[in-house]
């Protein structure tokens, strides 16, 4: 089931690559096919979700095949509630993104085939990352995701894309390579303890001395902290987001960056509970710094894309804070937050991306009074913004509050400082909305036209889910709760 789920987009990507390219209609065909493939993946994921036993915290639909026997690496995949949540996020966002990117202007007459093919490859790899229960497989898929994003930014982004792509790749590669050192360490530790294995279940039972555990944990965390991105390892994100297409930004921030926080839970907490416990005060402090720093940087940004990127730094701070507070409430909240942030940031990136492409500039000051001529766009921006500031009634509120409430029970000062973030969030969202949408319509902003039916079709699922999950988050919470309980149960 899981293999099928991961294989559908990859095979689809091959198919799209092989399709004829060149003329406009051929490129359109490629996009249609890609959209179809992503919808098939969505359907498969929904079937998987329907067959998922919600009450259990363990791994389900497990598949295991020996892969690289000499290295002890298995193709071992399974879903738990946390993984399923993120898989669902991936399969929901991919069609949305492909649909929203239908008319993206690609630089230098590049063909759309590869553009959408890379997106599908990324989807497949993301699914693999979220389902891998073998550290080696996880690492391979984790690092492999760099390549599609690198090409998506470098080939199809805006001005400065080459530099942004290289910045993205090197930053993440450095983190990933430190994790490679930890993977090497895991192999050595596990082969010393008997037979070498990377399977989560085997690794979790290996006795490790304290120093080893901490060092290995830090190796993993280096990759995750860059990916997530946790302050002060975040500076690649605004650079990358400022040059990527909105679709790429969505896949990068909403889906792939979640691998960082997801990894913290699955490979940080589950494998190294002692070290996670040891590091949690520091990480929580950094997370709070992320929250405040990201929000302030967003307020101070003059470029819309950078602004949105900084809001994500702030939101990731909340997610990480919740994870390392180690309470059922906060950690579950964090998992939910990953899902919700994926949706709200996707909406924000896509709608601002449409604004920017219409106007031809990403500067906030290039807009003004757009509401008058593009009311629907303005409405969507407002909803996306409000969800970003965690307005109660919208999905992100639930998760943010769970994170804060859970954190509050273990560390009051950090929770209090983090709560300041809600004021700053209001400022950055409303400043953006005020300066772009309200006031008298400026001459230069007159070129902006309202959303087309296709764009509405792409964005409305996001809005619907954001509103729906705000009032009815419980199904998702029921999914996440048992798995989080299992993870937290392993902590000292």
């Amino acid at each position: 089931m899981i293999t099928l789920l991961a294989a559908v987009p990859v095979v689809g990507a091959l198919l799209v690559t092989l399709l004829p390219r060149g003329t406009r209609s051929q490129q359109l065909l490629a996009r249609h096919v890609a959209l179809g493939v992503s919808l098939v993946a969505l359907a498969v994921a929904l079937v998987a979700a329907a067959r998922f036993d919600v009450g259990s915290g363990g791994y389900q639909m497990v598949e295991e095949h020996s892969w690289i026997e000499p290295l002890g690496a298995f193709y071992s995949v399974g879903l738990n509630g946390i993984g399923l949540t993120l898989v669902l996020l991936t399969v929901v966002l991919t069609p949305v993104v492909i649909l929203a990117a239908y008319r993206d202007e690609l630089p230098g007459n590049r063909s759309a085939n590869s553009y959408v093919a890379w997106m599908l490859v990324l989807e497949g790899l993301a699914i693999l990352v979220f389902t891998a229960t073998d550290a080696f497989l996880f690492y391979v898929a984790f690092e492999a995701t760099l390549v599609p994003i690198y090409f998506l930014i470098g080939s199809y982004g805006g001005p400065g894309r080459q530099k942004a792509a290289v910045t993205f790749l090197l930053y993440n590669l450095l983190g990933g390579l430190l994790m490679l050192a930890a993977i090497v360490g895991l192999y050595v530790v596990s082969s010393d303890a008997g037979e070498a294995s990377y399977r989560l279940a085997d690794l979790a039972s290996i006795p490790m001395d304290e120093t080893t555990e901490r060092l290995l944990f830090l190796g993993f965390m280096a990759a995750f902290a860059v990916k997530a991105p946790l302050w002060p390892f975040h500076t690649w994100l605004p650079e990358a987001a400022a040059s990527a297409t909105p679709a790429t930004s969505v896949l990068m921030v909403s889906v792939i960056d979640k691998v960082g926080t997801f990894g913290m839970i699955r490979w940080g907490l589950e494998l190294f509970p002692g070290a996670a416990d040891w590091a949690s005060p520091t990480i929580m402090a950094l997370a709070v710094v992320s929250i405040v720093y990201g929000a302030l940087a967003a307020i101070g940004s003059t470029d819309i894309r950078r602004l949105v990127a900084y809001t994500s730094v702030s939101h990731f701070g909340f997610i990480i804070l919740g994870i390392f507070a180690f309470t059922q409430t906060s950690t579950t909240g964090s998992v939910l937050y990953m899902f919700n942030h994926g949706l709200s940031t996707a909406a924000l990136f896509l709608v601002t991306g449409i604004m920017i492409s219409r106007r031809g500039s990403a500067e906030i000051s290039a807009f003004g009074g757009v509401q008058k001529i593009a009311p629907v766009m303005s409405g969507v921006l407002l909803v996306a913004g409000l969800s970003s500031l965690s307005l109660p009634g919208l999905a992100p509120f639930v998760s943010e509050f769970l994170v804060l409430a859970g954190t509050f029970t273990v560390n009051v000062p950090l929770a209090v400082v983090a709560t300041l973030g809600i004021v700053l969030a209001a400022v950055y969202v409303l400043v953006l909305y005020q300066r772009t949408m309200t006031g008298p319509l400026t001459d230069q902003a007159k070129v902006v036209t309202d959303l087309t039916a296709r764009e509405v079709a792409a964005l409305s699922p996001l809005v619907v889910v954001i509103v729906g999950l705000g009032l009815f988050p419980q199904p998702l919470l029921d999914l996440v709760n048992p798995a989080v309980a299992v993870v937290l149960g392993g902590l000292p």
Partner: protein
Amino acid sequence: MIPAPELDFALLSPLLIVAAAALLGVLVEAFCPRGPRFVVQTGLAAGASLAALGASIAVYVAGDLGVTDEPGRTIVADEAGVITWMMLAVFGLLGVLLFADRTLDAGLSAFTGRAADRPGSPDEAEAIRFRVEHTEIFPLALFALLGMMMFAASSDLLTMFVALEVLSLPLYLLCGIARRRRLVSQEAALKYFVLGAFSSAFFLYGVALAYGYSGSFAIGALGEVHDDTELRIAAVGLMAVGLLFKVGAVPFHAWTPDVYVGAPTPVTAFMSAGTKAAAFVALMRVLFASTEVDWQPTVAVVAGLTMLVGSLFAIAQSDVKRMLAYSSVAHAGFLLTGVLGGSDASAVLFYLVTYGLASIGAFAVVMLVRDAGGEATATTRWAGLGRQNPVLGVSFAVFMLSFAGIPLTGGFIGKLSVFVEAGRAGYWPVVVLGVLVSAMAAFFYVRMITVMFFTDPDGLAVASGAKITTAVVVVAAVGTVILGIAPGPVLELVQQTGSLIP
């Protein structure tokens, strides 16, 4: 007093095939008319490589390999040796195919027609007009291949020395006979020769000292306990100098960039893969046998220096071929980390396979990217290559990603394996340095991809449709990817190797 050698022809058949073909090649030079000579030589060399591969596989499958302590046995066909033969035969085959491509440069090979002509002289022009060519390159390549195979399979230091020279001497010559930029090519030959001879003298003196304290040339005798600690250490040290020179480790690496750049690119491709493989196996045989010498800390330092210096220099390059040369230095450093375990050759062997494939492939791409002046090796000339010629672009990207150690390429598995070796031996600082340098190294590999795919073409560099070379590129690229996705069989194969001590 000297017992007659007892030859096991079956076990030695791969070596004998290559040797016979090389000698036959010389005869072909003498008796075959000029017209079909090039084709005949090509066929002979390619056939010999293929046959050697087949014979190696047959030897391996037939089993009954192993170390023998029989006196006087100087070649050891153990698992490591036979596996290296297979690897070398493949590299040799790919290299010969690159030698043979005459479609790249208006029907002429990459080698000068008459090496004796002064560059730029009327004689040279005449040679070009009459399409004179040196078909000796094929026997020379076969001799070099023979030397490499012997080098990797020596169980005796003297044999190792002879093999070292057998592999080196043809390469010295091959380096000096490029058709284009001949002065640079001759310079490469001279540098390679002087430095090669110099360092092999060190190796030889090390052999003498080893003989001095053990009274034997057997590599296995290096581990014997004697009183002369200093002598033993000097022996191992001096031999290591010669071997580290061949693999291109810092500070014995300085020849590598200059020679790689000057040599005809097919030769660079062949020797970057083959010499490194043969020399590493020989190095491991010597070091692993020297159980009484605590060589790991020193080699660890050399490894660290090598990858660091290689990567740093590579960053500063603006020429693809030279960047690849420095990258080969950096890879020697990564490979050396795999030696630190001191007993297991499998990681290094695997790394050699992946590196060799990617390296041959990458240099083959260099051959294909040309303009009116021959190969266009300036990085800027590669702009937009990936979009202009996706097959070449994607292949080169695969090689770069493999060099950078990105998962789903063979290079990743190789890097992981050697780091595991170092980690097992407790050399964690080297591992950490290794990953940091990998990130640094990724910069210049990734830069190539950026140039090829993200920059718009300027229309200058043209990749012609040379079928043989393109085929080599594609084979190497596919091999690299397969080694990344399903490395199991090859890993299992290399794990059959024993301690390497003959």
